[in-house]
């Protein structure tokens, strides 16, 4: 009896000690804990944003099924202040070509978020009562812009975000002094594009497809449909247009029969032209 009790006792003691001493140490897959990783991501993004000498350029297509792209330039001065300019239209007291300072914040949420916290030109896109004159139906949503972005990655000279509201991918590209100088000329490109009526796709064999082209300056959306009005490029009615001094960028891309696609057009001799793999797309 004594021996049985002794065995039970020893066994119980061993179990109690073993269980009570279980450690929560485990083989971590990361060198830092989640909080440290988030803080490191914040520092990484902060450094990227602040250390770019001429800041960043973003062309934001808020809804490329009906609206175009609006280019913004950001110069992050320190942990709190940012200067921005934009090719959005002048509204009331706002002249977006004139650089203006405001505040921003990098905040922790599901990932690191970039939030523009005080009034500046980026907010004109998200103001429910600023709408394209030709689209009064957009009262309530305006140009559908967001000013809070979740940080995903940075590669080369680009930083990738997604808008918090609509999860639209946006790209910050490292800006140059030339970008700041050239922003004022985007309006001229818009004026030139307004006069264009046709979009022609030619492939390497010389076959062509012709579309009617109609660009609205206020929505920055170009309607591109076949002459009979039955079909449009990408079955999307058209494309959103972002303006450059010497051309345009579009979203979504125009997909071509050979599987390639075009997103950038150069302004050459009064026409906008994109070339890829023997195909030429011309807006004239």
């Amino acid at each position, binding site marked *: 009896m004594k021996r049985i009790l002794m065995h039970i006792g020893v066994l119980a003691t061993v179990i109690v000690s073993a269980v009570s001493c279980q450690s929560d140490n485990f083989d971590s897959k990361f060198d830092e804990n989640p909080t440290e990783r988030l803080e490191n991501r914040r520092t990484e993004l902060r450094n990227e944003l602040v250390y770019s000498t001429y800041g960043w350029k973003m062309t934001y297509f808020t809804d490329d099924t009906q609206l175009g792209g609006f280019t913004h330039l950001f110069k992050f001065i320190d942990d709190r202040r940012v200067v921005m300019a934009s090719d959005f239209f002048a509204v009331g007291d706002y002249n977006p070509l004139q650089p203006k300072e405001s505040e921003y914040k990098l905040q922790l949420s599901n990932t690191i978020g970039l939030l523009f916290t005080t009034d500046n030109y980026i907010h004109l896109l*998200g103001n*429910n009562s600023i709408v394209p004159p030709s689209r009064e139906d957009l009262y309530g949503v305006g140009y559908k812009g967001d000013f809070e972005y979740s940080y995903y990655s940075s590669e080369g000279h680009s930083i990738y975000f997604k808008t918090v509201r609509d999860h639209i991918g946006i790209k910050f590209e490292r800006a140059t002094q030339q970008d700041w100088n050239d922003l004022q000329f985007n309006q001229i490109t818009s004026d030139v594009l307004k006069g264009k009526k046709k979009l022609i796709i030619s492939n390497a064999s010389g076959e062509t497809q012709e579309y009617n082209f109609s660009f609205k300056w206020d929505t920055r959306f170009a309607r591109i449909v076949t002459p009979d009005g039955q079909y449009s490029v990408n079955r999307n009615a058209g494309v959103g247009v972002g303006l450059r001094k010497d051309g345009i960028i579009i979203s979504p891309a125009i997909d071509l029969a050979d599987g390639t696609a075009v997103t950038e057009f150069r302004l050459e001799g009064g026409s906008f032209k994109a070339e890829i793999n023997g195909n030429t797309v011309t807006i004239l």
Partner: protein
Amino acid sequence: MKTINRYIALFSLVGALGLTTSCSKEDSLGESRLKVTPEEKSALDNWIDDNYTYPYNMAVFYRWDPAKVDMDRYLTPVAVEKVQPTLKVIDKIWLESYETIAGNQFVKRTAPRELVMVGSMNMNTGATVTLGLAEQGVRISLFQINSLDLKDKEQVEEFVHTIQHEYVHILNQAEPFDESEYGKLTAADYRGDWHLTTDKEAWALGFISNYARSNATEDFAEQASWMLRDIVGYEEIVAKAPASGRALIRQKEALVVAYYKRAFDIDFYELCNLTTANTEEAIKL
């Protein structure tokens, strides 16, 4: 049996020792891994602290905080240069008036804990606009500040009317009014589509505005806030109203006045006279 008890005691002792000694590693939680350095305050932040946070126990949010607004709406921040002038006007007409009549502790106790300033308009479906919101009795959100002309008396009256209206809701949450007694005066004429009606129609039916027709709670807040907005202008409206409507508005007025006396010992007419006078001063600030 004695021997068994001795073994039990021995093993219990060993087990207890094992438990206490083996788990004593975590002495300190150490420093927070989150960066908790407070943000640097601007001159405007310090002014807000001195003029709102300390005297009225109220936080003012002018920097965008997505958690303070409806994410489904396309709203934007207030222009920073509008913040201080707007807060001065709000202080003069709303807070200072209540403080003078009811005392600092009253305002400190009943004022919302948060004031959220939004620059853009807040549009609704159905062609209406939300000018202000009172949420859970702790927060007043004000919209359309970027287009507010603080030297324009009518605009300032409309803006402060919104605040007064929302504040009445907050006071009603602290001290409920007799909704059934008040609501039965014009019970048949409340309607959801109030925005399809005019103020003139509302006056004839015993409401001070068309919005007052939405329900008894809004009616009470409208009745009080139209009086606070400009007591002289209010009297002119009542004088213009058809006799049947005028009598009902007067009955509602009496219930509002009685509520303020009973719930807060406030002479409501005295308060209205002061807010009207302070509005004249505020547009000269």
